Each structure stands twice: as C-alpha cells, then as structure tokens.
C-alpha cells in the first residue's frame, strides 16, 4: 500500500463523513480529529439506526463507526451497508473503530466487508493513514453468497506456480537458472536446527 509522507497533500474538505458512536465523548473525539484534517462536512449518528437513516438519505462518502454499540453494532451496520443499503451506497468505505480488539473481531469486521479496523484510542496519524490508503485504493468489490465487500486479498502474491495470472499486476513466475550452486546439507542443517540459547 502507498506510504503516506509528511508532505503529501490531502483535500478532505468536500468529503462527507458519517461518524457513528453511541458514546457522546467518543463521537466528539472523532469529530475533532476529522475536523483537524480539514473535513467540513460531518454527519453524526449515535446509533446504527440513525446511521442507516443518514445513509438512506444519500451523500455520505466515508463511514467511521464504533464497533460495540448497544442494540445494533458497528459490525451489523457494516453488513447492512454491504447487503441492504440502497445500491448506490453499498460500496461506501467503512472503517470500524474498536476499543477492545481481539483478532477475531478484526477478522469479523473484514469478513462483513469493512475496509479497515482500527483500535481506540483514536490516534490522528493512524486514522489519516487509513484514509490515505482508502483514497489510493483500487480494490475490487466482491459480491457472492458468502461475502460482499472489498476484495480481501491485500497481498498480491501472484498466481500459483504453473498457472498464468489473470490480473495485469500478477507477478510473473519465471525462474531463471540458479546463479550459485545449491548449498549442501552440512550448510543447511545449522540454519534449520533449533539450538538452545544461553543468555
């Protein structure tokens, strides 16, 4: 993913953010952070239900949502956006923000179609980095019975050996002749064998 540099410029002025959190203080923190980024167009929602109403009205460009909310969670909101929101809104970038983040929650967010999950407390540089990535992202959207959301394959490792890749960016699997002789077993053994370390 493209690395964000200090001198890179971002114009977020015309982008409408939907911020969702049931906790008023956390919502204020989100608002302060994105305002600092130059965002002028902010819609706030204190529940998934209020967020849905805002999305149904249209005009939202990015959704930042808390994960754990009473009633419907941020995960359920993400699922609704991908599967049930008006067709034009289903591809909205969604960033889930969560306090306690077991790995299973990160996987859950990804599998429900969130673009990113980030941990609280909200660190401005981390959020801006994700927005920067979102603005440079060219991930395709996948729609299937099992999953709807951005392509989860971040790492383009190329097609399996012996198969021609179908993507223009797929790496070529051509392997040249070895330039050095293969190491013999006596050289390989010390590299592979676990040894006790004395501290």
């Amino acid at each position, binding site marked *: 993913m493209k690395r964000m540099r200090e001198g890179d410029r971002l114009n977020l002025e015309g*982008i409408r953010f939907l911020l969702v959190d049931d906790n008023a*203080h956390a919502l*204020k923190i989100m608002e302060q952070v*994105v305002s*600092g980024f130059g965002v002028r167009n902010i819609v706030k929602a204190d529940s998934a239900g209020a967020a849905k109403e805002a999305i149904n009205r249209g005009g939202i*460009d990015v959704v930042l949502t808390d994960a754990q909310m009473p009633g419907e969670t941020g995960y359920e909101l993400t699922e609704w956006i991908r599967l049930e929101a008006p067709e034009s809104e289903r591809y909205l970038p969604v960033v889930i923000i969560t*306090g306690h983040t077991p790995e299973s929650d990160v996987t859950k967010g990804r599998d429900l179609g969130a673009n990113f999950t980030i941990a609280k*407390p909200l660190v401005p540089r981390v959020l801006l980095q994700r927005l920067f990535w979102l*603005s440079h992202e060219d991930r395709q959207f996948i729609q*299937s019975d099992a999953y709807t959301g951005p392509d989860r394959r971040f790492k383009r490792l190329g097609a399996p050996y012996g198969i021609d890749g179908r993507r223009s960016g797929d790496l070529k699997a051509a392997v040249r002749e070895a330039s050095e002789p293969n190491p013999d077993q006596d050289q390989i053994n010390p590299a592979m064998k676990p040894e006790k370390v004395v501290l």
Partner: protein
Amino acid sequence: MSGVKIVRVPNKLTQLVKRGGGIAVGEAVKRADAALESLEDASLAIIDEELAAIDLLYGAGNPDRASLSLDQLYEHASRIIDAGGGLPGSGVEEAARAICELVARSRASNIRDCDAVDVHVATLKVLRAQGQKLSAAQRKTVLQGLSDVTDKRAREA
C-alpha cells in the same frame, strides 16, 4: 445470488481527494492532535468517573462483588478506552484494554477470578496516578504483568 460477481467501483474518495489544494499530512496531523488536546480535561474527568464506578462495584468495599457479573466491568473499561487521550503516555488505556481482555477470557472459560480482577483494577489506579511519571520500560513491565496474569489464568482454566 449464484456465483461471484466482481465489481470495479470507481473510488469516489480518490476523485474528491485529487481535486488539489487541501493540507499537507504533517499539518493535518498537527491540527488534529491540537484539536484533541482541547478534550483532555473532559477525557480525564471521564476516566476518573469510570474508575470510581469500577471501585464501587468491584472494589474490596463491596461485599457482593464476587457475585456481580463482569459485564459492567467490561463496559466501564471500554469507556476508559473511549475517553482516550486523557492521560497520554500513562498506560491507562492499555490497562483498560487488559481488563476487557480479562473479562472476555473469563466469559469464554466461564471462570471468575476476583484476584485477577483486583490486580487489574489496582494497576489501572496506579497508572492513573503515576503512569505518566514512569519510564516507558517500567510501564511496559507493569502492563506485561497484567498480560501474564490473564495468560496464566487462561492456562489454568
């Protein structure tokens, strides 16, 4: 729906961001950090409120604490994380996150351990009072201790 449909979606964000103008990343981060500073006092007040609530419910002063569900502990700790930034560099948020992890694992194993809760809450209070005065290495050691307690309890479960 049958099969897989791959949709190339025009990235509206890219189009909007590319319009030129705007502010440099370094400046945007600086402004956001400054904006957050204005909330520090409010964040600190929330941390103290939540700590007091935790103490009232789960502290040694409550004779019924052993029979209380840990759900409220999770919620109070979550609100401390939500308040983020009130005590930068104190380790308070990490300790609150450790409490959430402890509760999550207690739910999974169905085992309630008052001693582990006490250790976590006491650490949270210490970090609230002294966390910013500790060196990064000292804070790391304190927080690692919480992680070790939770791991040990999980192994014993």
